[in-house]
């Protein structure tokens, strides 16, 4: 069993009287791709925000690499890509990346090399001088992902990173995620696309703020006697009714 990177104990989140997360307890392994799967509004984003420390946990606790989620030492180890295109539309790709690199703590002398590296990874080198507002949706998405790659974080929390991308690029990004995980990076990736779930090492099926199931895609299929994660999700939802 791999070493656990994130430990969530009885975590509940209530936002304005609405129970967004209900008593979630789970340990997540290091160096793996962990999928948060579930319909929109299920609580995936809330759980991610809890892990990066943006969302206050009403009850229970979340620890990341042994420290309370969001505590200052973690800010240099964790990157977060929100569901919105969280980069500045009125800056060029290059200006965005240089800015966020400085904020992430990359030293001034290493900025241009870092920017070049992450641009190469998301294949946006030729667009470095373009304003983000002039890019297509998929290209904006890649700039946002490039920001999350800055500084080689130990944990990357990516909220729907492949939405709206063409199949070829999606395939390339999943290869990238796999390479990062093999080098020891822990990746949390949310998706409501079930075929992406099959590519994760570890899955959390989330619905209505509850953790329906946790395990590898194989485990989940075996447990529910189904042929795909999609079917096991349906089976689990059905058995709850």
């Amino acid at each position: 069993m791999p070493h656990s990177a994130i430990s969530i104990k009885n975590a509940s989140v209530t936002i304005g009287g609405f129970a967004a997360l209900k008593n979630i307890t789970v340990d997540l392994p290091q160096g793996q791709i962990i999928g948060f799967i579930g319909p929109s509004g299920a609580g995936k984003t809330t759980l991610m925000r809890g892990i990066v420390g943006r969302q206050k946990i009403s009850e229970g606790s979340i620890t990341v690499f042994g420290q309370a989620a969001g505590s200052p030492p973690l800010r240099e180890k964790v990157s977060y890509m929100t569901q919105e295109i969280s980069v500045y539309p009125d800056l060029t790709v290059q200006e965005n990346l240089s800015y966020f690199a400085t904020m992430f703590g990359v030293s001034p002398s290493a900025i241009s090399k870092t920017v070049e590296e992450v641009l190469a990874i998301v294949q946006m080198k030729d667009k470095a001088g373009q304003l983000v507002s002039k890019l297509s949706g998929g290209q904006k998405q890649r700039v946002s992902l490039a920001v999350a790659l800055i500084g080689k974080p130990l944990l990357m929390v990516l909220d729907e990173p492949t939405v709206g991308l063409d199949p070829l690029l999606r395939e390339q990004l999943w290869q990238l995620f796999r390479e990062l995980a093999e080098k020891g990076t822990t990746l949390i990736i949310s998706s409501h696309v079930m075929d992406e779930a099959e590519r994760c090492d570890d899955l959390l099926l989330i619905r209505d703020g509850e953790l329906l199931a946790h395990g590898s895609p194989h485990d989940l299929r075996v447990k529910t006697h189904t042929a795909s994660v999609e079917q096991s999700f349906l089976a689990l939802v059905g058995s709850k009714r």
Partner: protein
Amino acid sequence: MSLLKTFTTSKRVLSQLRHDPRTLVLVLLVPSLLIALLRYVLDGERHTFDTISLVMLGIFPLTMMFLITSIATLRERKTGTLDRLMTMPISKLDFIFGYAVAFSLLGLLQACLASWVTLGLFDVPTKGGAWPVLAVAVLSAFLGTALGLLTSAFASTEFQAVQMIMPFIFPQVLLCGAFVPRDSFPTLLHWISDILPLTYSIDAMQQVVKSSTWTSDLTTDLLAVLGFGVAALIVGSLTIKRQE
């Protein structure tokens, strides 16, 4: 707090404006054009123009920087960039002072142009000269930035952010003593105007007109405006939460 991160944030904010030339032109030129307009509206009333144009040099930077900052901050909150920054190893003060420095610089440019038009082109007499006028204008810009940062916390849409100028800026303009002398106010209104920052900007401007030396009242006024601005920035930083 890190100087590198603060100034890099200022540079980023200014780069955003550089890519938005229309906003830049509006911010830099419109105050000067309005003062020129005022000059010809008050063509036969030279004395009135002399008084009002200087008051405007205090009010324009306040209102424009207030509007720009509240929209800019609201955008940071809405587009996820603030979310991202708050998970990074930066201090909230880097973010806030980064904005304050950037927009105060912009306010300085705006004030230089508008002061040149007022004092140079239209020969509005001030005994104190151009420097104190610029100082008042820049501090007003800083104050506008600080108030914009603070009030954007109470707005959840652009419509609301723009409307904040009504409750937060207009009463200050009415009560600052520029149009009606403060001495003629009822006691309660006088007290209220005592605690409004623009009152001190305008009083400073009036000092510059009257006095050929840098008076201690002028220093007090400028420190008051600076103090209000810093206080608004600090309260504003409390409205930005690491954890929501």
